[in-house]
């Protein structure tokens, strides 16, 4: 890992880095110029070869996703930039939007060109009002400079970009929930197939890509797929924005090559734990990932493969650190409450199951837990998430992966810290 130089965040500490003149002064929109002279298929091929995998959470190959868009369809095609960042522990897209919005926009134009789309959307989470205002300025700058609109850069390619605000719903980060929401409905995920590439926004072929994924594109075009593949882990290469929060001295977003050790992230980049307290547990990839114990956390690489091997996932790369003072039962309740609040209510196992998890965990925290509550917690998580095996691509009992996203972390808390759950319950027995 010698001398990794940040790619996506190289200029974020410089003055006026969000403006078009600044972005152009550091080579911005050169990749777009290059792309407009290429065939769309060649752009898709280059991105496929780079092995760029989606940065939103699922980690699916971006080039392959684009390749699913039917070439022979005369329907309009749509690109949606998923800027609905709402996975607890994740705050990287907000940084990119604030500091380098043109990098993301250049990526959007490249992606739109590749899939032959003439109207693209930025679906930004409703709470990000400041970023929404900033992006409106970014688009105005881009239209003014003919980077958007008719005949971009003197080519015959036209593209309009629309910013659309969400209104407070975690589930709209799921791509089909997002599409429903954009269509003016509640964000209920759709049954797949058909996948959005075949039938997405207004039944038209649609690609949904995350902000960070799109921000990688200008660099892949400028430096080539081989350059991108040379960074970090082989099976999921490239730079990655790791978010570290929780009980650390120096929380923040750290751009590192895929595959950096979690230990280095926590104890070097994020400055370790305040007052030299002991590490207890870590969410490695947002709150939907299974937690790691301190021992597991100190021995894992932050890439897709190694985390799956540890029965967790890289997800959105949102690392939440919990030190020895954090009560695991209360932390589990906190996360369960988040999911109960955000469950869209469409599937019964998730809607009812998340509510039951909160009820039971609240009861346990209040000293009212019963001896068979532990088994019941396992039963409920199984009923929401099924027996999860990501390696087989299997899903649980719900339409979307939200079910797994709550079952996994809750189950991991109980499995890995069962003693703490039992001690709450035994208190009651002792009193009785």
């Amino acid at each position, binding site marked *: 890992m010698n001398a990794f130089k940040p790619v996506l965040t190289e200029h974020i500490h410089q003055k006026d880095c969000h403006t078009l003149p600044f972005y152009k002064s550091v080579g911005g929109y050169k990749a777009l110029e290059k792309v407009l002279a290429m065939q769309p298929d060649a752009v898709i091929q280059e991105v496929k070869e780079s092995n760029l995998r989606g940065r939103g959470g699922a980690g699916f190959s971006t080039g392959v996703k684009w390749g699913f868009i039917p070439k022979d369809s005369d329907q309009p095609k749509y690109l949606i930039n998923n800027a609905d960042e709402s996975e607890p522990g*994740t705050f990287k897209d907000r940084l990119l939007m604030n500091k380098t919005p043109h990098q993301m926009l250049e990526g959007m134009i490249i992606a739109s060109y590749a899939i032959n789309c003439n109207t693209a959307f930025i679906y930004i*989470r409703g709470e990000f*009002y400041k970023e929404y205002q900033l992006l409106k300025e970014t688009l105005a700058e881009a239209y003014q400079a003919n980077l958007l609109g008719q005949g971009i850069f003197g080519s015959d390619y036209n593209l309009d970009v629309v910013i659309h605000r969400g209104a407070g719903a975690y589930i709209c980060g799921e791509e089909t929930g997002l599409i429903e929401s954009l269509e*003016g*409905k509640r*964000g209920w995920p759709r049954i797949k197939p058909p996948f959005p590439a075949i039938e997405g926004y207004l039944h038209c072929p649609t690609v949904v890509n995350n902000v960070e994924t799109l921000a990688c594109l200008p660099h892949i075009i400028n430096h080539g797929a081989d350059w991108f593949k040379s960074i970090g882990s082989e099976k999921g290469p490239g730079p990655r924005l790791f978010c570290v929060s*929780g*009980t650390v001295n120096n929380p923040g977003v750290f751009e590192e090559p895929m595959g950096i050790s979690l230990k280095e992230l926590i104890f070097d980049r994020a400055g370790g734990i305040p007052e030299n307290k002991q590490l207890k547990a870590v969410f490695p990839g947002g709150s939907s990932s299974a937690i790691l114990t301190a021992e597991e956390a100190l021995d894992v690489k932050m890439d897709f493969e190694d985390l799956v091997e540890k029965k967790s996932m890289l997800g959105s790369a949102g690392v*939440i650190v*919990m030190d020895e003072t954090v009560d695991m039962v209360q932390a589990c309740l906190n996360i369960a409450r988040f999911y109960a609040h955000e469950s869209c209510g469409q599937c019964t196992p998730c809607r009812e199951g998340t509510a039951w998890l909160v009820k039971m965990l609240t009861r346990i925290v209040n000293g009212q837990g019963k001896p068979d509550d532990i088994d019941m917690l396992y039963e409920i998580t199984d009923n929401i998430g099924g027996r999860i095996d990501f390696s087989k691509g299997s899903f649980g009992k719900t339409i979307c992966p939200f079910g797994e996203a709550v079952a996994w972390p809750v189950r991991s808390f109980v499995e890995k810290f069962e003693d703490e759950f039992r001690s709450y319950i035994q208190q009651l027995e002792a009193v009785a």
Partner: protein
Amino acid sequence: MDRIFSQYPDKKSATLSLLHLAQAHEGYISGSVIDTIADLVECHPAIVMDCVSFYSMFFTKPQGRHKIQVCQTLSCSVNGADALVDHVTNKFSIKPGETTDDKRFTLMKVECLGSCGTAPVVQINNDYHEGLTNERFNELLESLP
């Protein structure tokens, strides 16, 4: 409003944008606003109401001038979010979900605001306030009319 409609390929896609616009003007979404938007996007009012009830940022009742939204998800929680809620409750005698009698503040506990690196975070109306201490939070509250 024409600008909003012109951005989308169909009318219904404008629903959330129209709701945001209406709420920015009136502070909440009234029944008549729901009917008006339903007419504009050509759907049954129940579909618009469906959106209003689904999304946490839309309110069907008037709120205080300043909506104090304290993030309570894990990273904020382990960095002192509960103390911020308690501070408001003690200072203004309102619990989460309540509004002060003078309509100055509404207190809310909200889920992850996506700013975990600067926990604890409070959103007041449109603005994020990050890395708050009790003292800074208190000064901030005092400064709001």
